[in-house]
């Protein structure tokens, strides 16, 4: 095996194994159970969901830690393909196999894309927060690039989340938008992170840009737990979170398949976007080329 190949395997295999465990307990076991095959090692549904979530998030973190933003895009490309496959499977089951829900009917199928988008939007912003903290402590430019990537991906996902939510709100609440605590705190989060992207665009000095946007990201992240707990803290139109024990497998199977698929896509998007930021940073941080007069002095 060539050195490059061996380095690639060593770098990405642990993350791929963790993501595979996440996908296995996330939806392969549920898919098998759907066909009366038991692959769950006798574990309770809630425990399977917890293992899936921990393994998937650990896989994402592993990928982002070992990823060298200055190399080829082979790692993110693998995740892109895996994400598209999982998302297609989940959407097929959600649209054509899962039954309509008792009260919301067919409209409830929007949940299979809306909830995974919400989880991954908050996760992308958590990656931005962690990258901001690491950048401030270690001054490693890789984390500045990852922070910019995860902020942009978080903004795209939050925008998509609001669009899906509006489409779901119209047939169920009879309005496209309501200033309900969950929706309002999500809109605040979207515009706060959009503001940080704008700040990064206007500040030319990479050192000032990195520090200021890291501090702004840490402050804006305060809204993430508020978004999550808003439905519990305040009287909200938006429904509260369900637990795996209270949802039938016909409903959680497409939900988990899409959650894993969108997680793979989100990780791949962050890794690709971080490469774009890293290339720009490399140009900005490079020493200025010697002008002719200086060249003459050197010679």
């Amino acid at each position, binding site marked *: 095996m060539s050195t490059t190949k061996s380095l690639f395997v060593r770098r990405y295999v642990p993350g791929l194994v963790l993501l595979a465990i996440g996908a296995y307990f996330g939806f392969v076991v549920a898919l098998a159970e759907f066909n009366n095959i038991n692959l769950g090692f006798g574990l309770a549904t809630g425990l399977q969901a917890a293992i899936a979530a921990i393994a998937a998030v650990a896989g994402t973190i592993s990928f982002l830690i070992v990823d060298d933003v200055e190399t080829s*895009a082979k790692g993110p490309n693998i995740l*892109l393909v895996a994400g598209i496959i999982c*998302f297609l499977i989940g*959407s097929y089951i959600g*649209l054509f196999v899962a039954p309509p829900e*008792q*009260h*919301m*009917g*067919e*409209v409830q*199928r*929007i949940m299979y*894309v*809306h909830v995974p*988008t919400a989880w991954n939007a908050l996760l992308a912003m958590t990656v931005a927060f962690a990258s901001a903290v690491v950048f401030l402590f270690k001054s490693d430019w890789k984390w500045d690039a990852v922070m910019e990537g995860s902020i942009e991906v978080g903004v*795209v996902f939050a*925008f*998509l989340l609001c*669009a*899906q939510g509006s*489409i*779901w709100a*119209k*047939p*169920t609440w009879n309005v496209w938008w309501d200033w309900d605590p969950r929706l309002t705190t999500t809109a605040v989060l979207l515009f706060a992170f959009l503001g940080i992207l704008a700040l990064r665009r206007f500040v030319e000095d990479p050192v000032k840009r990195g520090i200021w946007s890291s501090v702004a990201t840490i402050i804006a992240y305060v809204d993430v737990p508020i978004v999550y707990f808003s439905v519990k803290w305040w009287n909200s139109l938006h429904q509260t979170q369900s637990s795996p024990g209270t949802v039938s497998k016909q409903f959680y199977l497409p939900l988990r398949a899409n959650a894993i698929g969108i997680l793979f*896509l989100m990780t791949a*998007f962050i890794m*690709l*976007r971080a*490469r*774009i930021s890293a*290339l*720009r940073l*490399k*140009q900005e941080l490079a020493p200025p080329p010697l002008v002719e007069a200086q060249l003459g002095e050197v010679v």
Partner: protein
Amino acid sequence: MTGNVTGGWNFVVAAYAVTAAVFVLYGVSLITRLRDARSRAAEER
């Protein structure tokens, strides 16, 4: 009024179409921007 939602497939199709469109367009934009950034970096070298 039963309190149950009937129909609504048009909303389901719209939500899935918006989701797929955002993923495809954002993915394509990232690949294009990365290619441009790489060629710009190669030119400057």
